Each structure stands twice: as C-alpha cells, then as structure tokens.
C-alpha cells in the first residue's frame, strides 16, 4: 500500500474540511491532495532520486511528503540547524534531489550538484498548477522516508522507512476519520524528526486538523492553543518545561481546549510531569516511546496510568510515571543480554522489538536479526506487570573492569544533591579498568560548588565503589541538541580534554 492513499481517503471522505493551518492560512484535504498530485508530477519531471526539505514546518512539508510517496521517491527532510559542513555531507548522499526550502543556503553548499531547487512558496504554487497524472503507483515495498539519525553517538545513519512500515503503524494505531471536526493537533516538533512526520500522517488519517508551529517558542505555543482551540499536542520534555515556565511567568492563554498531551523524544523529569499533571488537570497525558527505525511509537503509557500513578502514595505505584508504558498490541518486545538471551522480569538489558512497523533498516544495511528482531541499542527492563522502563542507550554503558555501569543510576543519585541542577556520567579512559566513570556537573545558580570528595562520597554511600567517579569536571551547562537529547559524545570529549 502507498502512504499517499491516506491523504486520498481523507480528501475523498471530507474534501472541504480544514486539514492544516499554518501561518494563518488554511488548507482543506482536497487542496492538499491536489497539491500532492501536482508535486508528484514535478518530482517525476525533475528526475530526482530523493525529495529533500530544507525548511521549517509548513504546508510544503505535507505536500512534499505525499508528493514523493505518489512519485515513488524517498522523502528526506533535513535538519536545517546542522552546520554547513555536516549538511553538505548529507546532501551529497542524496544527489540528485528535488530540494524545497532554503535556496540560497543550498546554492552555497552544493551549487553544481545537479539538484532541482524550489523556495517554499514557489514549490507550493508550482504543485498546485502542475497537471497531475491520475494513476497512483503501488509503492509496494518501496521507501517512503529516509531520515538521517541525529548522530548523538556517531556519524548520522540514513534510516529508511518503507511504505509498508508506515502504513502498518498508522493502521495499527489510528482509526480512520475518528477525530471530531473541532479537534486540532498542534505540531511543534521539527519536520525532520520522526515524531513530526508521524504527527502529520496520523492526524490526516484521523482527520484531525493540523496546526503547525514552525519554530517553537512557549509563548507562541500557548497563543496558538488559545487561538485555534487546540485539543491535542505532542511535545518533547524541554518544550513542556518551557511552556510551564512561561505560564508561571504569567503568559496568559486559554488552554481549556487541550484534552491530550503526548510526549516523548527524551527523558521526562519526574518533577516536571507531576507539575504538568497538576497544572493541566483536565488533560490526558501519554508518554510515547519509539525510534526513527520503528516508525515512531512502539510503547505507550496512557492517560489513566498517568493519573493513577500521580495520585498514588505508594512509591511503587508512583514510580510508574517513570515508565514508558506497555508495548503496542502490534509490537513484540524482549529484553536481552549481550549474548542475545532473553532476560527475566526486572533485569536490565537491551530492548529488542519486532513488528510490521519496524524497519530497522539503513541505506547501507539492515540491523534486523534473522528472525526480524530489531536491537534498539536502548537499555531497559520490564516490571512484573509488563511496564517498560528505559535505562539509557546501550552504547552509553560504562564498562569498568568487565562490570556494566548505567550512567542513569549515577546521575539519579547526584541529582538528589541540592546544589546540582544537571549532571552527566560518561566513560573515561582508565589504565587500570579500561573504562571508568567521569562526570560533568552543573551547579545550581546561587549555590556553592560542592567539593569533589563530597560527590564521590555520595555515590560511594548510595551505590558502590565501582560507581565512584574517577574524573569530575564542572561546566556552566551541558550540551543538548534541539530535541533535548543529551550529547554524550561532546561530554566525553570535554572529560577527555
């Protein structure tokens, strides 16, 4: 099945209903569908092997996504925040492309690479004017999306999602036309992130009006919720934190239309989610765990589970707020040790998933094992009731003299120190142990810098001596990417320097 069928179905069922709002302009399902067919004609005429987006979110992202699907060419939204050298390297991997967006930057980066380039507004106009071929090809097992991973631990990999993966994800998680006409989903994650793509496709299939916020700022987010009477939103934890800060500072907005907030993409601080549950008392919260390679969500913690854990006094019940929930009914999930053996309940290991939505594929190779299981490189464990808890990236594990140490356990202990506002534990080279623990510490504003000996003693007392940091540095802040992901690679470099 071709992903573009979902837009055709929406346009067939409700042609004149508003599908998308961006910068005050409203697009109906039939307008978007017509533009996608026009874009397909442009893409075919260009001979491009990829359709790239080098731009913030707009209607052009939807038109390029579905136009590329119709043309049977991979859609490849790029991270416009990357430095020139990195972006240039990615562009050379998708030549020749039809590129929509920042034309002047593109010409500076790869003037003679044979790309076909359109500024956003010209692309949209040309797509609306193009004469569309009527026949929709069957994309079969073809590639719908190519996303370069954020490369927090290594060079970006080109993850590919086939039509079959995304179609299976949508059919398994969304009911067609299930949204009320008043419903609206506020999309503020960037278009080159899997959550940004999944939000577009899910909302179109559910016929939930998409409200785009091209560049996130908490005040603008609150204003849009008010103005468009937004009912659903997806945020990463740092966005939620900044929204709450803005509300605390007195930014006024009527947010009573909000019924559902989903979040993911990074670790949610417990304090923050408790605060959010109080502040948005009428809202259902959903924690979604997924990866690019799994077509977005594979496990979720739903609204009732959030409220139950929030209201509980029993520590074990409350702890469930730190869980990413249970696997989707269409997903199989196992925790395995380094030798591939399935681990029992409560034991941490690497998370493996299997299902039709799981691609586990890169341009260069497939990471799936012979039985179709995808090693996520995320560490985690399941509790007795089947709830999944994450324990960092498997690659972040510090191996000290053969003993595996998860950075999270050390970080959690240190974050209890009143003078510490942020901390990261990473591996540092050690003559004696191969690797040992190094930490980068951010001291809370107005607090005195704690003595290194005091921090070592805190870890020794709460954990054990192997966890005690060998090297400690203090930093004004830790490096995060724009999605709130900690850049451990950079911290390692800091500690090695």
């Amino acid at each position: 099945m071709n992903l573009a069928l979902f837009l055709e179905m929406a346009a067939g069922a409700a042609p004149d209903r508003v599908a998308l709002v961006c910068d005050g302009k409203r697009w109906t399902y039939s307008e978007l569908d017509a533009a996608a067919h026009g874009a397909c004609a442009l893409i075919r005429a260009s001979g491009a092997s990829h359709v790239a987006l080098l731009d913030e979110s707009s209607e052009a992202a939807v038109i390029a996504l579905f136009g590329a699907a119709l043309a049977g060419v991979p859609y490849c939204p790029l991270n416009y925040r990357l430095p020139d050298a990195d972006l240039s390297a990615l562009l050379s991997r998708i030549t020749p492309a039809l590129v929509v967006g920042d034309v002047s930057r593109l010409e500076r980066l790869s003037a003679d690479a044979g790309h076909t380039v359109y500024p956003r507004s010209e692309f949209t106009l040309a797509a609306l004017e193009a004469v569309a071929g009527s026949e929709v090809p069957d994309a079969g097992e073809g590639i719908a999306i190519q996303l370069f991973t954020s490369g927090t631990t290594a060079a970006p990999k080109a993850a590919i999602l086939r039509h079959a993966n995304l179609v299976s994800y949508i059919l398994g998680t969304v009911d067609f036309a299930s949204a009320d006409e008043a419903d609206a989903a506020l999309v503020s994650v960037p278009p080159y992130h899997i959550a940004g793509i999944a939000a577009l496709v899910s909302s179109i299939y559910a016929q939930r009006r998409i409200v785009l916020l091209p560049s996130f700022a908490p005040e603008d987010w609150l204003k849009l919720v008010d103005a468009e009477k937004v009912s659903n939103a997806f945020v990463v934890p740092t966005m939620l934190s900044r929204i709450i800060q803005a509300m605390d500072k007195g930014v006024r907005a009527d947010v009573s239309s909000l019924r559902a907030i989903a979040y993911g993409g990074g670790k949610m601080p417990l304090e923050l989610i408790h605060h959010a549950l109080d502040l948005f008392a009428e809202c259902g919260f959903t924690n979604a765990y997924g990866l690019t390679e799994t077509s977005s969500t594979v496990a979720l913690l739903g609204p009732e589970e959030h409220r139950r854990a929030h209201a509980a006094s029993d520590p074990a019940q409350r702890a469930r707020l730190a869980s990413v929930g249970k696997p989707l009914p269409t997903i199989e999930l196992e925790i395995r040790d380094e030798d591939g053996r399935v681990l029992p309940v409560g034991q941490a290991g690497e998370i493996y998933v299997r299902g039709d939505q799981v691609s586990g594929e890169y341009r260069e190779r497939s990471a799936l094992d012979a039985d179709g299981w995808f090693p996520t490189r995320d560490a985690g464990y399941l509790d007795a009731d089947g709830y999944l808890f994450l324990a960092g990236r498997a690659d972040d594990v510090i191996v000290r003299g053969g003993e595996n140490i998860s950075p999270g356990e050390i970080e959690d202990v240190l974050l209890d120190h009143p003078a510490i506002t942020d901390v990261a534990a990473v591996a540092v080279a050690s003559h004696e142990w191969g690797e040992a623990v190094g930490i980068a510490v951010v001291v809370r504003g107005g607090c005195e810098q704690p003595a290194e000996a005091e921090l070592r003693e805190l870890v020794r007392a709460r954990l054990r001596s192997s966890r005690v940091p060998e090297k400690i540095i203090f930093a004004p802040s830790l490096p995060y990417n724009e999605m709130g992901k900690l850049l451990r690679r950079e911290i390692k470099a800091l500690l090695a320097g």
Partner: protein
Amino acid sequence: MKPGSRLKSAACDTEAVVIRCGEGTVQCGGAPMTEGGSETADLSGDFAAGSIVGKRYVDEAGTVELLCVKPGKGSMALDGVALVLKEAKPLPASD
C-alpha cells in the same frame, strides 16, 4: 490481486484496498470484486449489510484483510463467507 491493489464492487459503491491476500475470491454484495471495476451485478440480499469507510475487514482464518476506502451497500466476503470487522482497541493519540 496483491497488497496495495484497489478493488471495486460490481454490485455497489464499495471500494477497498488489499492489505493482505491469499487464496480465494473476494466478493462484495454477492459478486466478485475486480481491479478494473467495469463489471456490474445485482446486489445480493444475503450480502447487503454495507461496508464502512476506514474499517478493516478480515476472514476468520486471517487469509485476507481489506481496508474499505469507499463505503457501499454491499458486504464483502471471501468465497461466499462474509468478512468480519477487525476490531482494534482504541489507543490514545501518541504523536
């Protein structure tokens, strides 16, 4: 017929996209569904429960799965046995 094929009813307006297919003849309203959709047939009273857009239909054995993309008066069947609605527990929106 293969996954992705679009089938049309000869007896009503129903159209469906094939998600999974196997052996057997897919019918709607009592007559075979075709990819061309030029044939016409009378709607059989035994297969007139109707089809609902956006719903998935499967046979008992899970051989075929069809996604209804256009509703009609006929009901879909595999070799004369009516397909059933595939019920899925609704999930909260996660993206």
